[in-house]
């Protein structure tokens, strides 16, 4: 990262346009809204992380000695709800997506700036309901709210938690809607579809899922709430309702929701890999269509969550095959990132370390997903730690690694400051080691038969559980470090150059941090995307 020359730094930028609380809370600037989201989701990540710490602490010993079983149920439920709905789903789209989509397409703002701010408020209101559920004692249904437990039997605070998820869903829907319209209608002159960065493509695919998937879980949650309050009976088998219908409706959203979490991460990785390999992304069009393919296929695989829930073998077979098809576009992504790095001028800056971590961990997460898509294996390891390990490899090893890669890559753009190279590289290393130490043992535990969601376990599982808990501590340190040095950097860091990585892309053609309207003059695009020609290289050095 190169530091700024005395002339490069803009004295007037989006951060200097008012420093009052009001100027932030009433802003319609997509960049400020992105920063608001970043702060909000960081708080939820911290909360969700505390519950994870509680879980790992309890599981350090085989006996259920730290908390009551009921408390444990509430801990893993709150961990899931906070991490999925309040961190992972908004993580990259609402922060980096919000900040960068208008910049990358050469627009002054998103298509609906006020709606964008409204989305943040809806998110915060939803978060308040969830916090209400939390402080009044939590929820014990698991983040999946399975009926009839959630509707008829649970004595915990299902209603405020469900309302929180319902409300937050609309924040997600409106953000997706905003992005789709922005990408369609706000592109700079000359910026055709196949000149768009893959970050834009992946957000387009993500937004489609947000708009078309989220409403289904919203209505499902309404039905759960009605059933709990008015005893409607739609999911109650004693009056002819079908709990499996709940599972169908729930997973119709919640499986595609996994792709809401991972696709934006793939977009980040594509940008980072191209920049730090100094090469055009290998097979650009395949990469663009691959994210769309994952988004579309993602809507037709939900049944793989229900192999043991009375679903017929024939339906299971179809869902199994469709699930394995997702591996094809996912493999295209991984192979093409690797091929981009091949013979590239690879440099090992912090974002690239996270990106390489992502590629490896996502590959493991994805391949174990294929294993789980096979009915024979799935029935064996269903509801075990194997499943837990699998989705943490995708969501933590994938989505969060990509989030951190993106934050480190665009931090100079967001804050206009540099961060310490040594500490950031160390953090990347610690996260990678801590992550694997936490979750690899869980594959083994699951395969040996340790079920998920229990607060006690047989003694022979202790060694692996202690490893996992120790890893969680390391991982916690790895996550805390960036919070500290990035906060320090924001206030006290040295000013950085406009384009410290020597990257191409419209977002780097304006100042860092950008002015409120992003560009002094809206650029006209003539060149290709990821145009890392040797000539450009020479200019950078």
């Amino acid at each position, binding site marked *: 990262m190169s530091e700024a020359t005395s002339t490069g730094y803009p004295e007037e930028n989006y951060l200097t346009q008012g420093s009052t609380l009001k100027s932030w809370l009433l802003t319609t600037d997509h960049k400020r809204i992105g920063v608001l989201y970043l702060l909000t989701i960081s708080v939820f990540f911290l909360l969700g992380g505390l519950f994870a710490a509680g879980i790992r602490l309890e599981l350090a010993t085989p006996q259920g000695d730290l908390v009551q079983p009921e408390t444990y149920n509430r801990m893993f439920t709150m961990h899931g709800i906070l991490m999925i709905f309040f961190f992972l789903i908004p993580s990259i789209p609402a922060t980096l997506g919000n900040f960068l989509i208008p910049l990358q397409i050469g*627009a*002054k*703002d*998103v*298509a*609906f*700036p006020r709606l964008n701010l409204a989305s943040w408020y809806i998110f915060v209101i939803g978060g308040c309901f969830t916090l209400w559920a939390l402080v009044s004692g939590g929820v014990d249904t698991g983040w999946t709210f399975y009926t009839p437990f959630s509707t008829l039997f649970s004595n915990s605070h299902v209603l405020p938690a469900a309302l929180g998820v319902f409300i937050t869903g609309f924040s997600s*829907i409106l953000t997706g*809607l*905003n992005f*789709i*319209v922005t990408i*369609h*209608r*706000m592109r700079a002159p000359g910026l055709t579809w196949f000149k768009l960065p893959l970050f834009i493509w992946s957000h387009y695919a993500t937004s489609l899922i947000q*708009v*078309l*998937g*989220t*409403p*289904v879980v*919203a*209505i*499902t949650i*309404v*039905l759960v709430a*009605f059933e709990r309050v*008015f*005893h*409607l*009976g*739609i999911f109650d088998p*004693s*009056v*002819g*309702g*079908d709990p499996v*219908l709940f599972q169908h*409706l729930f997973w119709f959203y919640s499986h595609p929701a996994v792709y809401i979490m991972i696709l934006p991460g793939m977009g980040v990785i594509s940008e980072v890999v191209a920049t730090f390999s100094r090469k055009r992304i290998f097979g650009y069009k395949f990469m663009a269509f691959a994210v769309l393919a994952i988004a579309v296929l993602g809507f037709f695989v939900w049944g793989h969550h229900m192999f043991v829930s009375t679903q017929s073998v024939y339906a299971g077979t179809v869902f199994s095959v469709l699930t394995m098809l997702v591996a094809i576009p996912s493999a295209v992504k991984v192979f093409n990132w690797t091929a981009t790095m091949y013979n590239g001028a690879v440099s090992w800056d912090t974002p690239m370390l996270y990106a390489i971590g992502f590629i490896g961990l996502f590959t493991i997460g994805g391949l174990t997903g294929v294993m789980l898509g096979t009915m024979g294996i799935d029935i064996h390891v269903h509801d075990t730690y194997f499943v837990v390990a699998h989705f943490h490899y995708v969501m933590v090893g994938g989505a969060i690694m990509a989030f951190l890669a993106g934050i480190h890559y665009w931090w100079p753009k967001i804050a206009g400051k540099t961060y310490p190279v040594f500490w950031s590289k160390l953090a990347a290393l610690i996260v990678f080691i801590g992550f694997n130490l936490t979750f690899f043992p869980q594959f083994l535990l699951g395969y040996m038969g340790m079920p998920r969601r229990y607060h006690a376990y047989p003694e022979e599982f202790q060694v692996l559980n202690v490893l996992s808990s120790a890893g969680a501590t390391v991982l916690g340190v790895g996550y805390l470090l960036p919070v500290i040095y990035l906060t320090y950097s924001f206030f006290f860091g040295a000013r950085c150059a406009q384009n410290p990585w020597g990257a191409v892309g419209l977002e780097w053609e304006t100042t860092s941090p950008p002015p409120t*309207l992003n560009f002094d*003059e*809206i650029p006209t695009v003539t060149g290709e995307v990821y145009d890392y020609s040797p000539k450009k290289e020479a200019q950078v050095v």
Partner: protein
Amino acid sequence: MSSSHAHAPGLAHHFDSYEQQRQSASLGMWLFVAQEIMFFGGLFTAYLIYRLMNPVVFAVASSELEIKWGALNTGVLILSSLTMALAVRMAQLGKRKAIVGFLCLTLLLGLTFVGVKAIEYTNKWHHHLVPGEHFSFHLSPTEIGALQSHGIDVSDPAQAYYVQSRAEMFFSLYFAMTGLHALHMLIGIGLILYILRPAWKGRFNLDNHNFVEGFGLYWHFVDIVWIFLFPLLYLLGRHLPHA
């Protein structure tokens, strides 16, 4: 870039032209309708599945719905779609009084729909057809006969429970679906009241009528939902109890 447009009335700062603004608003509204379809879609799926699982009881229960009110409301909504479409047209032409007139007509028709729905709901309440503690589904002799001809004997307590619980399920879904639809009608009515003011002040013209057009799309969508609800809830299998 667009400093020449800086004071163009009704053009937001981040758009370069009215054309871009209008196309953005239009696409945004279509996407909103798409998410609405998925939102209602969950309920429609639930209804269709339970209807397939309990065809006879659902048919008998649906014959309790008052077809005259349902048909009246269908007519009212189709008419309101016409007045709404005319309001949009008048907004495009910038005819201030005509916009307000057609919006008021749409408002009246919308209120009529909600009023009729309230009458229907009240009747259901009086007939103990609202799900909950007071729910009790009384069968007429023809209905008992119709059930019997399909092998359901209500003199058997287990089968009587089956009929009662599935009938309650039908009305749960009826209230959930029509209730969600009525909620959308109420929001639509509120939005008409909100648009009337700028319409009266002459804010809408050829360049700037997105709000009316977008709202029109919403109104038509809510109408179309009813066009599906009416046959599914009121008409399907109506001949069954009388056969």
